[in-house]
């Protein structure tokens, strides 16, 4: 089992590297196309269906600054795949370098329990949870913008701010009544 480590490689100059993990491999492609359009920094995108990543790419792979798990809420498989992939990440990533992005949250065919499950997962790992819309160019653009904001911080390109600091403000929190039993 090979863990993906956040600090095992040197960073590139003015470069941010993002890994998009999505079992369906649909949204990641359009996100990647939009992400590399960014001009102020060089953005490298790595696409994966699931973790662990193949060993043979280890050499060519740059330091990954941010790992994004894309979960399609209408598909149980998508959630399970993301959940199974999590254990191949070094714990260091969970200090602000992982985020979850869900799609189809408004879709009628996505059960509310699945969203709750994703929420619990994100909050237990202290990760931010983003909601995105993958069908329209506008949705892709705004998702890209939000990812870039987090990515720049995680790559250390924003003075003063660190990933750990920002994640304290952005991480997903559960409303208390979901987790705690009522005492009446």
């Amino acid at each position, binding site marked *: 089992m090979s863990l993906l480590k956040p600090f095992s490689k040197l960073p590139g100059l003015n470069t941010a590297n993002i890994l998009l993990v999505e079992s369906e*491999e649909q949204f990641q492609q359009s996100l990647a196309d939009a992400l590399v359009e960014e001009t102020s920094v060089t953005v*490298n*995108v790595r696409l994966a*269906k699931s973790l662990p990543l193949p060993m043979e790419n280890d050499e060519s792979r740059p330091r990954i600054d941010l790992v994004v798990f894309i979960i399609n809420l209408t598909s149980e498989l998508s959630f399970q795949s993301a959940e199974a992939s999590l254990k191949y990440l070094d714990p260091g990533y969970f200090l602000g370098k992982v985020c979850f992005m869900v799609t189809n949250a408004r879709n009628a065919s996505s059960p509310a329990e699945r969203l709750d499950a994703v929420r619990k997962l994100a909050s237990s790992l202290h990760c931010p949870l983003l909601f995105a819309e993958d069908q329209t160019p506008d949705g892709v653009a705004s998702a890209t913008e939000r990812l870039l904001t987090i990515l720049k911080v995680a790559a250390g390109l924003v003075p003063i701010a660190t990933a750990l600091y920002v994640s304290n403000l952005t991480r997903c929190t559960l409303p208390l009544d979901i987790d705690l039993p009522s005492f009446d």
Partner: protein
Amino acid sequence: MGSMDNTAKRLLQRLVRRIPSQMLKTTLDKWSRLTAAQRQSMDYTESKWALTEKLLAICEENELTVKHIAELEMIHVIENPNLGMWYVFQLMDPQDDAHSVELTQFKEQFKSHLSELIRHVSIKIKKHTDEAVWIRIAWGDTFSRPNHLKPTYVVHYLQTPYVFLTSPTSKQKPLLSQALVLSTRYQAIKDANLSGRKLTAIRDLLMKQYLQVFPTKFPSPLAERNCVVSNLHIEKEQAGSAANRHQMACEAFGDGILPQLQSAVYKLETKFRDHTNKTMTERDEPFKCVVKFASTNLLESLRHSASSGVASTPVTPLLSSVPLKGKNYFVITDNGPGPSSQMKPSQK
């Protein structure tokens, strides 16, 4: 009282309702029961109701009967073979002279055999341009005249063992089978376990007229990886396994356009196997259930789920035998005793 009885009128009404206005003209032209002047007088922009009234009047004038209206229906069905449900039957054990059966002989034989079996039956046989013989049968019984409102259509390609049927009832099926077997010089007929809404699609599937791919066509997944990289900054980590999945999906289903099937049904009569559920696993009798896959284009969907990784690869023989065996109904039983027996689609 004119030549058109109630059935004829209802048949015509139903036909005009069913045929779209823009197609009505060509269909009537092919029918050739109207004079040129009568065809000229039809105004196809009018409502369906007005068109029906007009046609009824013309039919009365030309003294057409229900048989002529049936001809019109047949023309419409032949032109639109992808409406309705088709079931495939397969002829078995050809006799020595089966390959020399030609159209006129088949026509005569079929008609005489079927009318021997059932007294009131109306049969119409037509040869279509693509070698297909179309048969329209209106069934009656001992005391009633043939019911032209519920006909059965039979399509048979001479010199092939396949017969396509629409809506055969259990009462008519044995009669039809017997007439078919005798007139095609075969010895038996069986259900081919294939059905679909599109006649052309199931025909292509059976006669393998779609693009098939053989494993040798893909020398290695490397060729796939060498394709133009869209962007230097985007890299697929698992491109190799994606290409591999795609290749396996293509080996099972081909890489061209696939015949459109609407469903695949698996009837399971196997033992329940699940280590976490002891009560069910220890039962001796098989666990019966039916699994049905439905889609507007089933084979396309299966290929996509295999190549996108939703279904595991290599594609299970259960799925790949749909195009391979030309069937979409399977009964699955345990082969022999013991829990180690393999699940295999049985030859029903």
